[in-house]
């Protein structure tokens, strides 16, 4: 068996084409026809093309032979009989066992089967070989890495159990690639033990294993692909409403039937430990259905809640995803302080005040004042301050305003006719997200419109769904041009590309700059249906309302911030700060803050988590609802071959194997001396070719005619 040490030199064989091309270029030119592709013409045997006569086939053959011998010599051939092949066959093995412990492995006996398979693979590890056990779900953990003694791996396997997190094959393969990448001169093997959930593989994932790696898939899903039955609560929609002064909660749940049969189930809504409502729903196979409960009274102090399936089919694959938990934040109203020019008519802030006052989730208490009437006490009480076409106050009042923003209040600046670069106090230019410039006058035509918005931004995400308001409908006749500051985010633009809404941070507070008026002087926004939700969303976002989600997904990191929890890091040293994090299983962990007073808690279990600062009473602990990812509920499987092909190395495995398996560079040099013979043979052929060529051209031995002359 022949192998090559430098196979890339084989590309030199392309040079063989040179004499052939030289020959072909001698032909006469014919009519030229452009054709899209030679895909089929190339497949037709040579009878279909005009034949070229080779004038001197022997000479051509010698030249081609010489080039081939040279190319082969540079590629440095190795022959198994010379001693290297045996070493390759006996190269020790590195095995990485990837064991899936995602949420879906809780289905049936999948986990037990996975454990048995992993033990069998560990049994096969021979002395001198190394193995690593990688447990993965959304993330992957290699434990002790590649080891020759597999005893600790067996112990680790015995104590492992499936978690609640989703699946990411990409993370597992990337870690396996890192472990195997450092292993030179060894055979590489990856054993993937999983239920091969399709949702665990992202087709855009670029995870790829190093060369010479063999991937062995071991499927532990007992049911046939695509037939695994599962009913799950996939998503919730929580809306706060008001019935008079009574706050109410409207809950809609989305139930998915991922099985092959139609299912009828009882869905229950529970809040604060009490059953609030229930309803029965029939769901055809393979689709989801929304279930809306009647509005229920909302506890003022916040509460835990959940929607669960009270009846489910007997063969339901994952009973654990039949419940969807949430936490309701305490009902709170926002204090909004609207400042306008002193002596301005009541209509200036009329639309804005009415639109904000109508908000129910959250309720907004709106106070409208002249700019001079506001002082530090007013700012301190406000969650959001709106400068409605008025510049920020100068002096002490301005300092108090921006200090309040630094502390976390929101600031909305409405840049109309009265707010420009000259009226805005120079001391407060930096906090603005943009520099105020001239006015764009579009009053002569049909006016401008809002055409480009960031649909993922919290202000605009509610307008993303169909029939949720046409933001392009309002006509804007004038607006102020803005030059966004570095670091500011432009979240909406007018049709000429000019920024309409720009956002930046000032301390802990958010500053939003709206480039046209919010009354009817510069646009007809106030009389358009989108006005009310738009201004409410702007103010809610400025106040960071709803920043805490009602639930999180397993595997997410929860950021813990000592200052957000009320600690003053000027007084308390960050190293003295720690949190007690209690998982739904009851397991407690103490997490210490970093130098900046923050830390992260990995939410790797479904259920209600309790988190509090160490030393704080348990009753004041914060509750976080965590649910399994909905993708884990989909038990359909991916084709093994597809997954293996996606992560397998692309280069020639034989070449890589040989390159990596040779004992040392010195041995390599000693054992591949065959190139010298090839060079000598090439030289010999070239000498013959030269002699023959000279003879044909008449430069060598004179012909009979020449001799006579």
């Amino acid at each position, binding site marked *: 068996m022949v192998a090559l040490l430098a196979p890339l030199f084989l590309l030199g064989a392309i040079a063989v084409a040179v004499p052939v091309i030289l020959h072909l270029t001698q032909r006469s030119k014919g009519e030229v026809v452009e054709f*899209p592709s030679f895909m089929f013409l190339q497949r037709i045997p040579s009878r279909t093309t005009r034949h070229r006569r080779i004038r001197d086939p022997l000479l051509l053959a010698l030249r081609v032979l010489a080039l081939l011998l040279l190319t082969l010599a540079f590629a440095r051939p190795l022959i198994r009989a010379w001693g290297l092949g045996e070493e390759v066959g006996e190269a020790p093995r590195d095995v990485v066992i990837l064991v899936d412990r995602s949420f879906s492995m809780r289905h049936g006996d999948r986990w037990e089967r996975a454990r048995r398979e992993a033990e069998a693979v560990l049994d096969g590890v021979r002395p001198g070989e190394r193995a690593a056990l990688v447990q993965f779900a959304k993330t992957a953990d290699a434990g002790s890495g590649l080891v020759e003694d597999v005893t600790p791996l067996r112990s680790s396997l015995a104590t492992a159990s499936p978690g609640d997190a989703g699946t990411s094959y990409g993370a597992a393969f990337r870690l396996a690639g890192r472990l195997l990448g450092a292993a030179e001169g060894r055979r590489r093997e990856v054993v993937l033990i999983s239920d091969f959930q399709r949702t665990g593989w992202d087709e855009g994932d670029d995870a790829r294993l190093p060369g010479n790696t063999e991937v062995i898939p071991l499927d532990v899903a007992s049911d046939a692909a695509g037939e695994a039955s599962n009913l799950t609560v996939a998503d919730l929609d929580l809306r706060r409403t008001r019935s008079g002064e009574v706050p109410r909660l409207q809950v809609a749940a989305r139930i998915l039937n991922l099985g092959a049969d139609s299912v009828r189930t009882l869905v229950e809504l529970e809040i604060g430990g009490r059953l609030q409502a229930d309803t029965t729903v029939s769901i055809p196979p393979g689709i989801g259905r929304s279930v809306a409960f009647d509005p229920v009274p909302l506890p003022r102090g916040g509460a835990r809640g959940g929607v669960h399936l009270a009846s489910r089919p007997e063969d339901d694959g994952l009973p654990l995803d039949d419940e969807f938990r949430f936490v309701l934040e305490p009902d709170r109203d926002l204090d909004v302080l609207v400042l306008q020019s002193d002596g301005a008519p009541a209509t200036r802030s009329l639309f804005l005040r009415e639109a904000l006052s109508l908000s129910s989730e959250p309720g907004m208490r709106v106070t409208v004042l002249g700019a001079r009437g506001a002082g530090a006490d007013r700012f301190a009480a406000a969650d959001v301050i709106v400068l409605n076409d008025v510049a920020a106050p100068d002096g002490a009042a301005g300092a108090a305003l921006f200090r309040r923003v630094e502390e976390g209040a929101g600031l909305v600046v409405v840049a109309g006719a009265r707010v420009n670069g000259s009226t805005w106090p120079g001391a407060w230019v930096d906090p603005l997200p943009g520099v105020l410039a001239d006015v764009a006058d579009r009053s002569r035509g049909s006016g401008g419109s809002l055409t480009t918005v960031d649909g993922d931004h919290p202000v605009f995400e509610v307008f993303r769904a169909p029939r949720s308001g046409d933001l392009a409908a309002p006509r804007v006749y004038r607006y102020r041009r803005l030059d966004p500051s570095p670091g500011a985010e432009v979240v909406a633009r007018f049709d000429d590309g000019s920024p309409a809404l720009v956002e930046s941070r000032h301390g802990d507070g958010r500053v939003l700059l709206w480039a046209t008026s919010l009354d009817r002087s510069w646009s007809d926004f106030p009389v358009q249906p989108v006005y009310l939700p738009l201004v409410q969303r702007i103010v809610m976002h400025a106040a960071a309302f709803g920043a805490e989600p009602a639930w999180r997904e397993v595997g997410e990191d929860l950021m813990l911030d000592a200052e957000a929890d009320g600690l003053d890091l000027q007084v308390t040293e960050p190293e003295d700060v720690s949190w007690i994090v209690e998982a739904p299983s009851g397991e407690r962990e103490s997490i210490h803050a970093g130098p900046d007073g923050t830390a992260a808690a990995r939410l790797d279990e479904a259920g209600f988590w309790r988190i509090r600062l160490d030393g704080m009473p348990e009753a004041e602990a914060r509750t976080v609802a965590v649910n399994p990812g909905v993708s884990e509920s989909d038990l359909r499987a991916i084709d093994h071959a597809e997954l293996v092909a996606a992560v397998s190395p692309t280069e020639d495995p034989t070449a890589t194997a040989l390159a990596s398996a040779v004992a040392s560079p010195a041995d390599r040099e000693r054992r591949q001396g065959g190139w010298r013979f090839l060079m000598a043979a090439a030289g010999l052929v070239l000498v013959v070719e030269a002699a023959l060529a000279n003879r044909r051209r008449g430069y060598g031995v004179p012909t009979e005619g020449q001799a006579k002359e």
Partner: protein
Amino acid sequence: MIARRHTRAEAEAGSRDRFLDPLVLSRISDLELLARTVVEGFISGLHRSPFLGFSVDFAEHRPYMPGDDIRRIDWRVYARTDRFYIKEYEAETNTNVLIVLDVSRSMDFSSGGVSKLDYGRFLAASLAYLSGQQRDRVGFVAFDGDTREYVPPAIRHRDIVLHTIDRLEPGEGGGLTRPLSRVGERLTKKGIVALISDLYAEPAEVARAVGALRRKGNDLLVFHLLDPAEIGFPYHAPSDFVELETGRSMPVTPDRLRDDYVRLMRDHLDEIQALLVGQGVDYAMFDTSRPLDGALFHYLSRRESRLRVR
């Protein structure tokens, strides 16, 4: 009487065909005017097509929420129950339509009529216009070896799509896998993907590239465009053939190879069709001498079936 009716029907059909003839269309320089001509001529030919307009299939009632349009309250239900309910309709939600046009060098081929690229541009513009009329979110991708143009799907992007199509130039050569994989990465919502290409790649590669989009849940329509000369190979004189994508040349004696070429092309088409249809892809081959209405019919039928199964 019967004979007169027949004549009128023929005249109407002839008139419609004349407007949809690619050669006639190629004389219209404004792409939006062209698309409007095609689509409106086509629609008038359909006589109130059942495919057009929004579906109004009633789906379900849901309780009224603050912020809902009060015009959508079902007053009959209110009269019966004394509670406000909103009527929900199926398929009012607009569909994402992404038109993916191959602009590789081989598409710039013409044996006398319009080139495949121009035919593809007409078709893409007509689909964009038609989708815009139906208030679908229209997006556009042009590719050769890689993505050349990308306009994300949005309701108001029709004009941008038409402008983009209008200024398209033939690109370089290239395969399907890489650009279609890029398209797949950018698709965040399921929808209709209309691929217009001459599909010069191995059938397995075509199936793999197209299948990746299909597996993401998109409805996939493949418009396979070929020039009549690519199908029938009507050349006679021995000539130097130059491949458009690579520029390399090959001496060819057409009379000797025609039968083999036609057979290979037919096998290629059959194999592509079998593989794509097997994956649930809607495949149709069009030669560039055919009027556009066949392609538009094909598209509308597919869109209609998508709305029905939603």
